[in-house]
């Protein structure tokens, strides 16, 4: 039996959550040396790990290509917001893993808030974000009309060039925001890494998954939250 338990496969996100997830897997007794050293390989069959972008994790887990996965709550919320009518991905959200703690914030340039100014004068603000679903839902819930500009890369650039008055983005320490003369105006939601499971795997491999959850409970990293 592999250390993960009974041939289970887990989707591991590359990027910000990678380190924490690999530490967690190492804590469970997986041999993670190759996982750490080889950042081009995607499939680590002998330890039951596949690696991918964080936003792809729910896709693979929902389809059953992986039994389990680790991804950020931001990813889950965004996909839920974009699929509002269907109530998000059909995956189980099993555990808050605690690490990768970030806050989704609304930020704008320091000084008098340009977003407020735009709302007052024009009745509408422009907001750049990588999370159009979450942004649209939040601005709608707080009763503000906004034009949402979806960008793929450095969101901080958008207000500095005058394209938008505010941004909605994820921040861990706030350093990047400060360096770009942006300040947090509103905190929207705190996001951490989550363990998710395929609905069929959750039933058919119940024993293996429950054992894994039990062992996770004993690890310090998983109890930060």
């Amino acid at each position: 039996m592999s250390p993960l338990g009974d041939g289970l496969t887990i989707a591991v996100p590359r990027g910000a959550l990678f380190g924490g997830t690999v530490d967690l897997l190492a804590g469970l007794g997986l041999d993670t040396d190759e996982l750490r050293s080889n950042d081009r390989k995607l499939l680590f069959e002998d330890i039951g790990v596949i690696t991918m972008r964080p936003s792809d994790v729910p896709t693979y887990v929902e389809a059953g290509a992986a039994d389990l996965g680790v991804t950020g709550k931001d990813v889950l919320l965004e996909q839920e917001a974009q699929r509002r009518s269907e109530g998000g991905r059909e995956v189980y959200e099993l555990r808050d893993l605690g690490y990768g703690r970030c806050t989704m914030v609304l930020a704008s340039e320091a000084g008098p808030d340009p977003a407020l100014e735009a709302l007052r004068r024009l009745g509408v603000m422009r907001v750049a974000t990588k999370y159009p679903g979450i942004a649209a839902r939040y601005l709608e819930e707080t009763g503000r009309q906004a034009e949402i500009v979806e960008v793929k890369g450095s969101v901080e650039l958008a207000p500095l060039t005058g394209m938008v008055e505010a941004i909605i983005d994820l921040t861990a320490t706030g350093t990047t925001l400060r360096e770009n003369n942006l300040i947090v105006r509103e905190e929207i939601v705190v996001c951490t890494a989550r363990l998710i499971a395929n609905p069929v795997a959750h039933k058919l491999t119940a024993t293996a998954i429950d054992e894994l959850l039990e062992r996770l409970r004993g690890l310090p990293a998983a109890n930060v939250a």
Partner: protein
Amino acid sequence: MRAITDTLRAVFERHGYGEVYTPALEYESVLARADMAEAQPAYRVFDESGAVLVLRSDMTVPIARVVATRYGASEPPLRFCYFAHCYRGVRPQRGQPRELLQAGIELIGSPAPQGTAEALTVLCHALDASGLKDYRIGLGDASLFPALMASLQVPESTRPGLLQALARRDFVGLEHTLEEAGLSDEAAELLLDVPQRRGEAEVLTDAPAPAVEAVTGMRQVHELLEPGVAARVIFDLGLVRNIGYYTGAVFEVYDPALGNPIGGGGRYDDLLGHFGRQLPAVGFALGVDRLHVALAGEERGTGALLAREPVQ
């Protein structure tokens, strides 16, 4: 596909289920009598007098309507089967098109546990005949979690949030909502733990008092099943179907060759009452496309979870 439906039809007929056809278009006001929750009809048209018609999103409600209007005087139990296209607003994805062919039965006028056991038996015979090998059937009870909340005195205002978290399969959300609800640690732990209990018959032992009724019902059903069918059952105290009209036993079909359930069903003892004939009932529907994908996956030995997880 034709081979699959022919096989299923033969099994349904052997068990005494007669095939019915109902119109694909129903009045919206008729379907609205049942709580469809997430399986709401998605496509609407207007007729010549401006009334709203919808494309049916399942067959259970139309059959309930037919039973009340056309079989009002017939002696129950009534046995119907159907092969029909239903229409749902879903994202195009493997095994999940907008138009889906459902094969199913409805057993009307037969209460729990006998009726439930009969439906499960027909389900297993049909799947066996289709050639599916490694499937399991998750058996739960829709009334279990509400009963648990009521007996633990969960405030009314918190209950919908908890049920919603459970229906979204979000145990983290469930835990957070429980923390905010100000319940005793013991109650919160029970509400978080019970819906995660699933597996073989041992999950039915030491059920907390408020769940005993539902668990006893599940055990009674299980005892009525022939061994071949009983061996397929996985008990799942947290099973929630995304349709609101279920009142008792609910079940879902899982196969390691497919990442999502092939079909499912349950008891809907109140639904017929909305159409004027109070009769207990149970039924299931299989997604024929999903069954097809699962069969092909099993045959190749390369289905979603198949390469890794030998079942049984």
